[in-house]
């Protein structure tokens, strides 16, 4: 800690930061643009000018850029100094020279950093009397809108897009006051994180295009803290709603996970909630037709079904913990299925076991950013866990940070650190069957089949710890590669191994865990991360249940009369023949979902449940972090939370048949969680993922709208001129209106939007952090359920290395190994119901090794029949394999799968 003096005030501050950070942390209002907490300082905008004095005697001082000046002991600075003020007002005035002054029609309005800073500097009279320069805008695709005239040239967009996110199709063009930020030509922004431009840009150049279609000012929307449902990483989000429709998703800062950035799937995937595919009323199959019926009818129908025999339940890794648990409570553990195949469930449970058994560290995404050697073993994380991929991309900067440290250049001096690090070697190793977005920053990439990668992984583990089982008959190349990677990992202070279940290969995860465990013998910082497919895969793995195969068996045996399926499109897990068989074998199928999936057509009863934005619940991310999402939208009945529907079903039954009687008495989410905690002690801490519904600040509920909320009373005035009482959720501490408490140190899990006096944009977040880029003042959001076997004495209890090392893959004469081509846009279920994501997904293709692409189209024979697809060469793809986009070609793709491929030209090398 260091003391500095800001306008005569003594402030304790961290010593490794710059004056701008120090001022903001001291709650001073100092305007800035080009600095961003995650992007560091470059000194371009000159907005953060302050006066610095060399000592108490110095009365003149000199203007410095706060963001470019390191904090020093006893530094004396003034924000209020007239000359500094004057200069800052001048900077805004310059920025506004060509600005269109179009705030009334600008979608940034009301949450615009430029507006805030303009007010803050006091610039309010236009003195420039000449013509404004204008630009032409570009069509940047379905996600991001472009209005270049609003640009103030802070260079944040290109710095984020190129330097941070690794994109190369957004650039700065031209020079002097003509600089232009866009693409060489109109066209869709290709980077997976393009949507963040909306928040990174301090003005209205880049705005949220889907949001634009149902645009609402920030102050007219309700906000609720939420959690992304589009992969297992568990990024924190804010959902915004008005008129009971979900309008947009924004980033919600979580210091450990997503921090300032969301992937485009997460930001724009929410469209399924308002899509025409939503189920809004109960549907009952009558004479082969599904007809809307009232809730009461649906419940009596269910009671009739239940009276006929055994009820079994199928949950889903994309359903909240509470929903899964309520189903568990309805049908009992013996009849509760996780809704996954044996293989899927085996993999998630294995991931859980490996993580709990790991003797080293289980890193957060933020910790991964500082890993100084990373091995990605058989997982295209950029597609399966995009935000995690972005963290790994940051990890390659470690070497440049060390170089900067040696040169005494502070790490936040972004451009300088990048200059110094331009020749620093990467420490990222990517071993995957197909190219990934991380390849361009990797020290080494290697292409092989999952089994061969696993073998290499086991070999690496053996190189590090000879007591790990050796791999026989490695090629000399592979042996050398294993030794080299082992060396790189051993040399690191914070090595990290990442794998996952993309290829359905337990061996890959075993190998990754072995390497991490071997490394952990030397350093407890050796960390392991495993990627899972769905937002609650881990939660469900911890709950356990029957695999789908068992349900199939029982159905065949006629043991199931009613099957209650919650938020699970079984057609994505089971082959069409299996689905047909199941439907035929079970007399009554009840599907609870928010979206009309292909499975629904087989149901005798379909019940509309709330989507993530319309209820509250808990999800457990792949790193075992239980996180609560909160209701923002109050949908019309009978749409309600999954657990409430299940409770309603239970109430229509004879109470004595229920395995858990508590179920019918639950009043709110906290009751569900309390029961869950007793039933599943491992999951018990999930109760504390966020404060309970009766949490109050100064005796008040928490408001979920900004003070400027307006129009609430007139939205429905055409129906009724009386004031509408605001809706209320018994499950949350939120008032759902602008009434209630709100303050920067409220619990991190409960922050529904960012705003503080003078700061209306997302930049207000600075005030909610205990230090910039650090934890939230009000404590963390969510709670971790897994802790590694930290103090495990490795000598006494040797790590149980896996020994079942797969055999090398040998290309077959008549079949190919089909590998999933997981795509950021197109593979994940719910986001594909969102129009902008649909628009971003490209048509399915068949990826073949470059040497094997003889013809334009080929036919792949899968269980569900032949698939005729265009062929695309994939550099490096191993011989004897094809890449096939998961779920787009055959809905229920399962791996590994061998299949026949047809249509090769005669000259092709491949059989």
């Amino acid at each position, binding site marked *: 800690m260091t003391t500095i003096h800001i306008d005569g005030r003594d402030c304790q501050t961290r010593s490794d930061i710059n004056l701008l950070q120090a001022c903001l942390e001291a709650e001073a209002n100092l305007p800035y643009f080009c600095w961003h907490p995650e992007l560091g300082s470059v000194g371009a905008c000159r907005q953060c000018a302050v006066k610095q004095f060399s000592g108490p005697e110095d009365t003149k001082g000199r203007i*410095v850029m706060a963001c470019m000046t390191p904090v020093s002991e006893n530094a004396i600075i003034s924000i209020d100094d007239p000359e500094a003020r004057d200069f800052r007002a001048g900077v805004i005035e310059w920025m506004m020279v060509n600005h269109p002054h179009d705030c009334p029609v600008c979608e940034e309005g009301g949450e615009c950093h430029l507006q805030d800073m303009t007010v803050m500097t006091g610039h309010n009279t236009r003195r420039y009397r000449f013509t404004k320069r204008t630009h032409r805008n570009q069509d940047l695709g379905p996600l991001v809108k472009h209005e270049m005239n609003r640009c103030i040239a802070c260079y944040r967009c290109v710095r984020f897009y190129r330097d941070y996110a690794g994109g190369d199709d957004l650039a*700065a063009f031209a*020079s002097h006051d003509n600089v232009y930020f866009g693409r060489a030509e109109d066209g869709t922004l290709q980077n997976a994180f393009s949507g963040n431009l909306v928040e990174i840009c301090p003005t209205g150049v880049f705005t949220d295009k889907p949001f634009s279609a149902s645009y609402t000012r920030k102050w007219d929307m309700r906000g609720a803290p939420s959690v992304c449902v589009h992969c297992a990483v568990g990024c924190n989000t804010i959902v915004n709603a008005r008129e009971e429709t979900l309008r947009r998703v924004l980033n919600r800062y979580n210091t450990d996970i997503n921090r300032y950035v969301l992937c485009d799937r997460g930001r724009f995937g929410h469209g399924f909630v308002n899509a025409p595919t939503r189920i809004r009323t109960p549907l009952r199959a009558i004479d082969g037709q599904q007809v809307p019926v009232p809730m009461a009818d649906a419940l009596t129908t269910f009671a009739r079904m239940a009276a006929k025999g055994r009820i079994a339940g199928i949950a889903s890794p994309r359903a909240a913990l509470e929903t899964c648990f309520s189903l568990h409570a309805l049908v009992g553990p013996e009849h509760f299925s996780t809704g996954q195949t044996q293989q899927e469930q085996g993999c998630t449970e294995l991931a859980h076991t490996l993580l709990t058994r790991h003797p080293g560290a289980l890193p957060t995404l933020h910790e991964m950013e500082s890993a100084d050697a990373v091995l990605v073993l058989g997982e295209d994380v950029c597609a399966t866990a995009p935000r995690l991929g972005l963290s790994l991309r940051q990890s390659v900067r470690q070497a440049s940070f060390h170089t900067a440290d040696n040169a005494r250049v502070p790490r936040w*001096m972004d451009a*300088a650190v990048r200059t110094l690090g331009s020749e620093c070697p990467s420490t990222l190793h990517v071993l995957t069957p197909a190219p990934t977005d991380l390849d361009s920053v990797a020290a080494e990439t290697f292409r092989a089949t999952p089994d061969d990668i696993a073998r290499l992984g086991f070999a690496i583990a053996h190189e590090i710890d000879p007591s790990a089982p050796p791999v026989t008959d490695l090629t000399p190349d592979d042996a050398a590669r294993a030794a080299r990677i082992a060396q790189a990992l051993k040399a690191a202070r914070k090595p990290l191994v990442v794998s996952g279940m993309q290829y359905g290969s337990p061996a890959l995860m075993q190998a990754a865990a072995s390497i991490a465990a071997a490394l952990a013998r030397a350093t407890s910082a050796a960390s392991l991360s495993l990627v899972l497919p769905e937002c609650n895969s881990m939660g469900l793995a911890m709950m356990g249940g029957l695999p789908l195969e068992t349900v199939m068996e029982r159905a065949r045996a006629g043991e199931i009369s009613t099957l209650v399926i919650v938020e699970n499109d079984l057609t994505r897990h089971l082959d069409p023949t299996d689905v047909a068989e199941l439907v035929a074998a079970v007399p009554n199928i009840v599907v609870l979902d928010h979206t009309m999936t292909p499975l629904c057509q087989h149901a005798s009863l379909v019940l509309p449940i709330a989507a993530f934005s319309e209820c509250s619940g808990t999800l457990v991310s792949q790193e075992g972090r239980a996180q609560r999402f909160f209701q923002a939208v109050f949908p019309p009945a009978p749409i309600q939370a999954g657990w409430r529907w299940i409770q309603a079903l239970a109430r229509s039954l004879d109470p004595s048949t229920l395995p858990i009687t508590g179920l019918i008495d639950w009043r709110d989410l906290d009751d569900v969680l309390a029961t869950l905690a007793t039933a599943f002690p491992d999951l018990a801490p999930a109760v504390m993922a966020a404060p309970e519904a009766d949490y109050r600040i100064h005796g008040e509920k928490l408001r979920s709208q900004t003070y400027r909320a307006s129009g609430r009373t007139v939205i429905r005035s055409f129906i009724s001129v009386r004031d509408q009482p605001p809706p209320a959720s018994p499950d949350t501490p939120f008032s759902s209106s602008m009434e209630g408490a709100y303050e920067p140190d409220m619990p991190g899990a409960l922050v529904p939007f960012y705003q503080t006096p003078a700061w209306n944009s997302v930049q207000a977040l600075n005030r909610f952090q205990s230090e910039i880029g650090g934890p939230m003042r009000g404590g963390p959001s969510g709670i971790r359920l897994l802790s590694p076997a930290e103090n495990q004495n490795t000598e006494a209890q040797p790590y149980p290395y896996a020994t079942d090392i797969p055999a090398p893959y040998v290309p077959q004469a008549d079949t190919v190994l089909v590998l999933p081509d997981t795509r950021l846009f197109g593979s994940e279920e719910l986001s594909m119901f969102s129009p902008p994501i649909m628009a971003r997904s490209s048509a399915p293709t068949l990826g073949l090794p470059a040497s094997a692409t003889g013809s334009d189209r080929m036919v792949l024979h899968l269980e569900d029949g032949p698939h005729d697809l265009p062929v695309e060469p994939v550099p490096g793809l191993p011989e004897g394999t094809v890449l096939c986009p998961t779920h787009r070609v055959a809905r229920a793709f399962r791996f590994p799968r061998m299949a026949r491929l047809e249509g090769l030209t005669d000259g092709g090398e491949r059989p």
Partner: protein
Amino acid sequence: MMAASERPLTAMIDPAAGPPDCATYERAGGWQAARLALGRLTPAEVIDWVTRSKLRGRGGAGFGTGQKWSFVPKEPASERRKYLIANADEMEPGTFKDRWLLEGNPLQLVEGMILAAYAVQAGHGIVFLRGEYQEACVRLDRAIGEARERGWLGENILGSGFSFDIHVHSSAGRYICGEETALLTALEGRRATPRSKPPFPQTGGLWGAPSVVNNVETLCNLPHIIANGPEWFAGLGLGEDGGTKIYGVSGRVAKPGAWELPIGTPLRQIIEDHAGGMRPGYQLRALLPGGASTAFIDTTALDVAMDYGSVEKAGSRLGTGMAIILDERTCPIGMIRNLEHFFAQESCGWCTPCRDGLPWVERLLDAIEDGTGREEDMEQLDRHARMLGAPGRTFCAHAPGAMAPLASGLKLFAADFAAHIQQGRCPHHAGAGP
């Protein structure tokens, strides 16, 4: 060589004969210094000699050359990638000295670069040449080729164990590329915006490697310092600084041109003796002593010695030492407008005050010169001169450079500004007539 010539830099330049080839160069004393340094001096000794010679950088800022080199990490060239870059971007309006040296005697630059590279143990040499200098490019390429053929460039030069080679980077026109950090960015194939310091180029320059950027004229002095000794060189200067300097004059003088003279030669002498005084019918009104980015001085300061310290005392800067003369019949506001147009257009667009402030200044001057100026425009000009002129407010020295002629002009030509605004027209009618 040109033994103790009074004009070491240009003695060998003969426009009629073209640049000397290697043999001619050697006959006239060339390569003597390289042979001496590589054969008998340590890199540290070369740095020491150059420091003692009182050579200050001729690129404009006047930083001590030996001192600049002393910040470079000391590893031998074979152990660490380092760069020595000749700044031949010469785009400062009114400046044409480096072209003279480049076209007249490129081998002198090559030898200078070898010496500088040896001193800082850089293995890679680059000439950053402005794109318009096509003839210089051809001659330089030829000289480098010849030097390489004769073993002055390449592996293990003269068996000294020191390896060094040069390649020419022909730029594509942008004044800011002359700023040494923007120059590095340009060499990396990026948009040439300046970089923040630290890291200084000497420790983290091109591609992050230690790099020294020196002006062409600076480098061309080196062979003479080494061949004739630092004391001889220091003695050439008339005042504090060492050596000779290329001075030049353009505008309505009788004989515009450039001349190599002892550094510290009085301005009056340069204009009257060498440039032949004003053309008949024209009177000297004021001048920019060292290129477009230096402040105006008027006739009261004509006796200033043209060295770094003295010109600064007179309220301007030596800059490139290339004076631009404003005569009585040319509109000073037109001249300043022309300068500010240049600076506004050449702003790289990185920092706000320069990017958006300079065009504002240009519009104001347009308005005043075109007769639509207003009283309050003067306040705006003042404000800009103040806000952009002081160091540290803009990212680099471009904008302060741009404000030097404006700020001084506002004082010196206050009456002209007032007349323009009051009369609603330029009293010098069409601005500048022939």
